[in-house]
């Protein structure tokens, strides 16, 4: 599988296989993720795309029976190396989930600050600045700046999801993983998140799993099509959607299955 080869590479998987016990959910996948790009991972339900994403911040190994073979290189360093602490790693690779998951006992401010506080105490002013920056980048600042001390549950679903983006951004990760971030949002909320992807890729490297093909086409630079755990095709998004090289890809994007 020829990965796109332009720009610097932030993240790379080499023959990555993810297993649950003895069953492989992702098989032998090699992909390059260039810096400051958005890569969409598409495919029918159960094709292993979420599992693949979870291998990139070592969340997969927390699942019952989850383990991997192969390599995942972040800035050239294998994150599955013995010396790598998965907890430290997860601070460099942020993640946003399908459903908004604000911490219900925390205020808006505390939610955003959570990832920073867990990294050690820091001066109040520095924390304030980091929270503001994260909320601005998540395009939420103007809506919540007057109620930072309110419960995060007071926000709408779309706002909660952007709050989760802000929370993921606050520790200044290098890579942002989005696992169907708009699946539970209305069209307006979805649009906001998509716009956000455009703005955020200037700073981060984004990998987004999505069920929504239009979304993948709209926001990504590269698209990877998974089917039954195999990476079927990987390419520039416009090329994959207009001139797919594999028959299965074409069948999927034209809606013949999936």
């Amino acid at each position, binding site marked *: 599988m020829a990965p796109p080869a332009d720009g610097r590479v932030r993240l790379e998987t080499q023959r990555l296989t993810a297993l649950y016990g003895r069953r492989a959910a992702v098989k032998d996948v090699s992909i390059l993720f260039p810096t400051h790009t958005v890569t969409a991972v598409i495919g029918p339900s159960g094709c292993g795309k979420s599992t693949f994403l979870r291998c990139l911040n070592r969340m997969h190994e927390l699942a019952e029976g989850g383990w991997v073979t192969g390599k995942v290189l972040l800035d050239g360093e294998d994150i599955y190396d013995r010396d790598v602490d998965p907890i430290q790693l997860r601070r460099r690779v942020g993640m946003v989930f399908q459903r908004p998951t604000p911490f219900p006992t925390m205020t808006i401010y505390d939610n955003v600050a*959570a990832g920073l506080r867990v990294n050690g105490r820091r001066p109040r002013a520095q924390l304030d600045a980091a929270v503001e920056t994260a909320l601005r980048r998540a395009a939420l600042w103007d809506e919540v700046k007057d109620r930072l001390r309110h*419960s995060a549950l007071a926000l709408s679903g779309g706002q909660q999801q952007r709050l989760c983006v802000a929370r993921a951004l606050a520790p200044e990760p290098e890579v942002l993983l989005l696992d169907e971030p708009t699946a539970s949002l209305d069209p307006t909320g979805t649009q906001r998140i998509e716009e956000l992807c455009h703005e955020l890729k200037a700073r981060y490297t984004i990998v987004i799993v999505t069920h929504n093909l239009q979304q993948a086409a709209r926001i990504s630079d590269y698209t990877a099509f998974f089917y039954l755990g195999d990476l079927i095709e990987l390419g520039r998004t416009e090329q994959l959607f207009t001139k797919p090289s594999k028959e299965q890809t074409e069948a999927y994007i034209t809606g013949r299955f999936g």
Partner: protein
Amino acid sequence: MNARRLRRRLVNGTMTALVGALSFVAVLALVLILGHLVAKGASSLDWNFFTKNPVPTGETGGGVAHAIVGSGIIVGLAALIGLPIGIGTGLYLAEYGSGRLGWVVRFVADVLNGTPSIVVGIFVWTWLVRPMGHFSAFAGSVALAILMVPMIARTTEELVRLVPHSLREAALALGYPRWRTSLRIVARTALAGILTGCLVAVARIAGETAPLLFTALGNVNFNTHIGEPMEALSLQIFQYATGPFDEWHRLAWASALVLMGLVLVLAILARWVLRSRHGAAR
């Protein structure tokens, strides 16, 4: 067709009435108990009852201040011992208890939950009172704590399990170590429920008599030293109610009313904690 519909309606009506009647009986028990206690005990509740200690048999007047304070100390100390252990065990079971050890702990907790409280009393007598050589409030607290731990552990476990898995994942993905996820995110989210469980457990043990019989023993004098025998409301009721004097019976009813009131207050408090916490979270 019509006959079938009629039959359904009939069955539906009968069953609804039956279930309604049964729940009425259940509520009736509480109403009768409360009503009876108020009728018999309320007239004896005055300032003296709460502030005075007992007077020698034969004289009228006097109160149960020593038992109220004693109950407070014994139950408070039991909570101090039992709550951390119970909550810790519950957290462990919910977060890490999927293995063999978890199964064993859960099983032991369930058995302990079903153990008659008098057996716990005898146990503590054997292992604490006898070696120490005398009865003490502390031994009573230990007995009550042993009763509390499995109750709290199991409710805590259930409530912690209710916290959505997605919250755990969100914290872990943010670089939270697992123990911090358990404490800062999961336990805090379940806190209102855990507190409610604790209050219910405290209410349950506040009325226990049997485990105190061979441990705290009881004391006719006012005592705040936990190394010595101490009176408790439940012991007081037992002693006064089985005694021969009308004055004692009067005080027993009043004590029972106070104890019942205490339990009710705790139950209401538990409800309130749950409601206000959930209300604030909306």
